[in-house]
């Protein structure tokens, strides 16, 4: 086995000029288990009439893992098979996906067993026991990474999940074998059609954008020995931007092919809802964390500074360059996004879009406003952010709803998201 040194460890770098993490060509973004599970649950809602949706979840993971590790191994030619396996298992842990070993895998397939895996643990935590295996991401990841380890072509291997932590099994087990199917897998769009720009420093806030982002991007957020990242009250992942984009946009394509535009509003509304769920849990957790209290809270003078504080955090999540374009306190916000990961990927993979596609961003902006104004978190923290609180603010009198006003995938120069107050009832 090769000596483990820095050259064999895959971590990637943060590119300030686009607020993006790139690891061997793959953009990495932070997302929590609430978003990961909710998004997957919405897609699986259609499995009775979109029978390929589960395969989309697997294939999309296989494509990004294959593309990333193939690129990395091309640049580390001295690594032998054991060294490559170590790179993959180490990155899986680092990213918060869980703890795996690949000792029983070779170029014809094999078996992987784990008792700590993000989706299996998270799903059970969020929804209770599942009646089917749900670790589609890990299933595809294992196939794609193993193909890269052995220099096989993308699509050579097929993986299936035999048992699942989310079902109450003691282990999640995955079996890899030579694929007999004619699945058409395509390499990841990698960095996509990205933009560059500067992190703006608004003059109407005491939040020091650059100083905070600098501190955040150097925080050692990575999986513990069990491969999970338990931070800010959620299970975080350093996930693949292209995975979310592939599953979301392929889902929409399948949906429109099957149902036409009937139900399209429902599908997009639920993708946006995923962003709101994400904001509620992750932003809400961050706003009550020790890190927030130590780093950001001392700079806060107004309630609007809470908005700016989270916008800086977003600029350290790998989601692109976010800036508050306009803020009418308690009523409306406009957020401008350059190099947003959704548009980056969409433009490279699919070309121009006929509808706005920044679903996560739209939901995230509205979710942020709901936290600060509808929930009034600044004056109520610490507060336990559970389903009951989420339901209460969602059904309360004041609620923020997003609209994507400009979309780069539709030809605009940047994404522009508005979240405005609506009054229920």
């Amino acid at each position, binding site marked *: 086995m090769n000596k483990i040194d820095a050259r064999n460890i895959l971590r990637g770098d943060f590119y300030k000029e686009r607020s993006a993490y790139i690891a061997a060509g793959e953009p990495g973004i932070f997302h929590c288990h609430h978003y990961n599970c909710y998004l997957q*649950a*919405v897609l699986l*809602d*259609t499995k*009775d*009439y979109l029978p390929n949706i589960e395969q989309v979840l697997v294939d999309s993971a296989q494509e990004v893992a294959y593309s990333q590790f193939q690129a990395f191994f091309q640049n580390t030619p001295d690594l032998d098979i054991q060294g490559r396996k170590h790179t993959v298992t180490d990155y899986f842990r680092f990213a918060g996906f869980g703890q795996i070993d690949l000792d029983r895998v070779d170029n014809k397939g094999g078996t992987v067993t784990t008792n700590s895996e993000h989706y299996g643990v998270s799903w059970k935590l969020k929804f*209770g026991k599942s009646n089917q295996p749900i670790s589609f991401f890990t299933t595809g990841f294992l196939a794609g990474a193993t193909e890269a380890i052995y220099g096989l072509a993308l699509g050579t291997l097929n993986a299936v999940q035999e048992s699942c932590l989310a079902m109450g099994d003691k282990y999640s087990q995955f079996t890899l074998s030579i694929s007999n199917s004619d699945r058409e897998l395509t390499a990841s769009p990698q960095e996509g059609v990205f933009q560059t720009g500067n992190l703006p420093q608004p003059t109407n806030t005491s939040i020091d954008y650059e100083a905070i982002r600098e501190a955040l991007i150097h925080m050692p957020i990575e999986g513990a020995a069990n491969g999970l990242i338990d931070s800010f009250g959620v299970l975080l992942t350093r996930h693949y931007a292209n995975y979310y984009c592939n599953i979301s946009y392929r889902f929409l394509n399948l949906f429109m092919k099957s*149902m036409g535009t*009937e*139900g399209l*509003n*429902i*599908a997009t*509304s*639920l993708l946006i*809802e995923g962003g709101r769920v994400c904001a509620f849990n992750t932003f809400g957790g961050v706003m009550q964390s020790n890190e927030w209290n130590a780093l950001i809270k001392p700079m806060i003078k107004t309630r609007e500074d809470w908005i700016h504080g989270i916008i800086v955090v977003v600029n350290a999540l790998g989601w692109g360059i976010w800036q508050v374009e306009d803020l009418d306190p308690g009523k409306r916000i406009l957020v401008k996004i350059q190099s947003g990961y959704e548009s980056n990927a969409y433009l490279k993979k699919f070309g121009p879009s006929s509808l706005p596609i920044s679903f996560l961003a739209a939901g995230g902006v509205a979710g942020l406003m709901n936290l600060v104004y509808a929930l009034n978190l600044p004056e109520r923290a610490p507060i336990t952010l559970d*389903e009951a609180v*989420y*339901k209460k603010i*969602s*059904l309360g009198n004041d609620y923020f709803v997003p609209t994507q006003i400009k979309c780069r995938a539709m030809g605009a120069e940047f994404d522009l998201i508005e979240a405005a107050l609506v009054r229920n009832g």
Partner: protein
Amino acid sequence: MTIIHIKQFLEKNGAPLAWLRVQLRLLPHFNKRGFFLHSMNEEAELDDELLELIGQVLEEIYHLKLA
């Protein structure tokens, strides 16, 4: 039981956008019965089979019993 009844029940007891998830899950079943989103009559009575399917979805996703 009507659609409006179920929507009101979910607003009181369900998670946000619960009705949308029910619709997404059962879209072909709605369409088969002539319920299309652009022209959905919320006062229309739902047949027993569709009600049972809705009940199963609510039980599975939200652990709710339709009342």
